[in-house]
């Protein structure tokens, strides 16, 4: 685990998302209605839609292009045989931290 601070939680809109640029490509960081954070690749496996622009509801994200719905815990798409890669992310003292070791592992792979 190698936690990197990517900014205050307040920078992500409630029930919204922001992106971060990483070696492994764009990663979307989501904030739910109850202030949990999740991170996943910002690319829908269907047609490449930017998930960070979707609607966050409960612990799910709906892709803005064709409404595929992903569970942010597992990355699994609802009713589809597809998934997005999720990354470790947490809040500490109001800051959002992401697990950089996972990001690095992905870019090496």
């Amino acid at each position, binding site marked *: 685990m190698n936690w*990197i601070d*990517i*900014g205050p939680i307040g*920078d*992500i*809109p*409630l*029930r*919204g998302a*922001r*992106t*971060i*640029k*990483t*070696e492994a490509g*764009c990663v979307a*960081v989501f904030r*739910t*209605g*109850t*202030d*949990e954070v999740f991170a996943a690749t910002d690319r829908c496996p269907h*047609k*490449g*839609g*930017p998930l960070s*622009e*979707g*609607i*966050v*509801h*409960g*612990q*799910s994200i*709906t892709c*803005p*292009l064709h*409404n595929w*719905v992903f569970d942010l*815990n597992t990355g699994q798409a609802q009713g589809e045989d597809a998934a997005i890669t999720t990354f470790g992310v947490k809040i500490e003292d109001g800051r*959002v931290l*992401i697990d*950089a070791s996972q*990001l690095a592992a992905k870019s090496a792979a």
Partner: protein
Amino acid sequence: MKQKLVIVGAGMASGRVIEHLVENAPDAFDITLFNAEPRGNYNRIMLSPVLSGEQTYDDIVTHDDAWYAAHGVTCRFGEPVIDIDAGAKVVEGQNGPLPYDKLVIATGSAPFIIPVPGKDLPGVITYRDLDDTNAMIEAADKGGKAVVIGGGLLGLEAAAGLAERGMQVTVVHLMGHLMERQLDEAAGYLLRKDLEGRGITIRTQASTKAIVGEGRAEGVLLDGDEVLPADLVVMAVGIRPETRLAQNAGLDVARGITVNAQMQTSNPDVFAVGECVEFNGTLFGLVAPLYDQAKVLGQSLLGTPDAFIVKDTATKLKVTGCNLFSAGDFADGEGREDIVLRDPGKGIYKRLVIEDDRLIGAVMYGDTADGNWFFQLIKDGTDIDEMRETLIFGPAFQGGASVDPLSAVAALPRDAEICGCNGICKGTIVDAIDGGATDLGAIKATTKASASCGTCTGLVEQLLQVTLGDAFEMPTVQPICGCCDLTHEDVRRLIKSQELKSQEAVWQELAWKTRNGCHVCRPAVNFYLLADWPLEYLDDPQSRFVNERKHANIQKDGTFSVVPRMWGGITNADELRAIADAADKYDVPTVKVTGGQRIDLLGVRGADLPAIWADLNKAGLVSGHAYAKGLRTVKTCVGTDHCRFGTQDSTGLGIKLEQTLWGSWTPHKVKLAVSGCPRNCAEATCKDVGIICVDSGYQIGVAGAAGMDLKETERLCDVATEQEAIDVTTAFVQLYRENAKYLDRPYKWVAKVGLDWVKARVVEDLDERRRLIEAFELSQSIYRTDPWAEHARQAARYQPMADLTLEAAE
């Protein structure tokens, strides 16, 4: 020989320590108790009933003078301790020093004072002890207005107490919902509703800038420069451990005085207990863990091994009539699941959080009778897999057979009330069914059951099913989505009739099954709320599709298109130059003339949007809302200005219509056109509203379509003047906004309600037409603005939050 034990602070924790010592080893210690307050131990958590007048100080005293005397405790009350010399083992009281063998620090906590101008003015008080309570009671006797800063446990108890004593109370809370540490949004909403019902005004997301007044507090200045008048200001934003003595004595202090599991500080002869301590990074504010600490400390002083462990705690608000309960951890997390029960009619909300087949958190509002049972399940870590199906119904339902709703309805007695609004009993409905009313409509017509609020519709249908058996076919109503059982029409109606003005209100009152909806219902509910309550409801960008949130159309490759408005399709060289410059500057790959008489810049990168908007704004161009479920374009021909056939100024009318309607949100997109003569060059006869100019005036057609369906407009009316044409169009759009289902274009909506219904309101009833126009203008006072200008100012939000590729390079 007896050891000398000195205790600093006579609060609930140290009180329990003394009780423990005198019960178990009355001869072990010679106890001296210092207290800065001129009194002994009383039950601080019962100060709220004292404030509200339900109890008196005498009711809440735990240890009186006789008790201390009987147990040989020397009391030095009203005497603050000035210093502790831990090396010499001496406590320096205001009236003289006192040596000790063992010392217990129990200084509790101090209220947190927010550092704003005016915080020290007379009339500003905190809420911590009996003196504060008495000061509040005294102030309340004079009546007037009180502002309570802080919507947590303490602040709300203060607010309720002051309201009970007749003050006009406003609570100012920084966060989005009340008691956010103990409650989720839904319970916070119900609590707010209850408190508002008692006449308390609640202001959330309100930040205090200053307390103003000449010589004494007269008002609270909020961030938006609004001043709330106040004769009394209560600060109840939080507490912090009182650690000054410990710090000066050289003890280890983090946020609180650091103690080990034996409640021992960094000095082996000095112990600490209560709200002033920090254990394993945790601070304590509720009474249950303090009593645990007191017991452990008692054992430690007597040399018996024991250890303090942090346990879950449960919270209840001590405001009579507000029943809420929260325990454990109710944040969402990986592998956690929710069970939610809502009974809007009774104002009940229950939510259980489950992880690995164990209950880990519970939030309840309205009915908290099962709170302790749930709390026990949390504390015991009981495996709940077996009773999961009925868990939320509480202990009474465990072990019983599963409940089938139909057999439950069948078992109801004849005099059971089904429709609360109209007081209709089961027997009346069954008789009506036997008398030939065999569907919902007939039941409504003959008995009035389910004809008002409609929440009993399901019950009535079940009755039909039970009574008629297979002869009854359940109607297939199409709910908005899986999150609720209501149709769009039902939700619209209930938002209006029940005056639901927030998403949280809709989810709670209309029994949503998910916590905050989904991508299907959220945009619809967001629109309904802002259309019906333009002033009260704040548009929620996070409940909009990307195009409306970003004010640009997302393209299949994730880039966006930018379309500036060209009023009535009219532009000029300066605007065209600005568009050409923007196309160059931002490498726009495609520039296209649209069917709506304007120019589309396609392929703009998301991160460039604020900059390109700012550039276009400088040339006077604003958003064309080409992305919006709102007014798109008003297509025109050149009319009398240039055309030899033109009968009226069609371009001028088009511009006026566009300037009236732009920025408004509608159920689906709205496109208009104005043609200057029946040759119809602007193709007005397939638009949502299409106006054809003729010699005698204007022919207004509505409900055309030229998309998935092709349909000619239907004639709404003919009018003589341009102003009437604008009025009728505006009223039509407002009627559509108020009544249509989200994502129904006007032609679909008109087909449902009928053109005559529309005519009756927009054409024939002039009072209604006026009302519609006024309602539209009220909404436009908020929404007739350029969103690009606003978003260009928040450019940072369009950039990545962080760039880890740079970090790696460094």
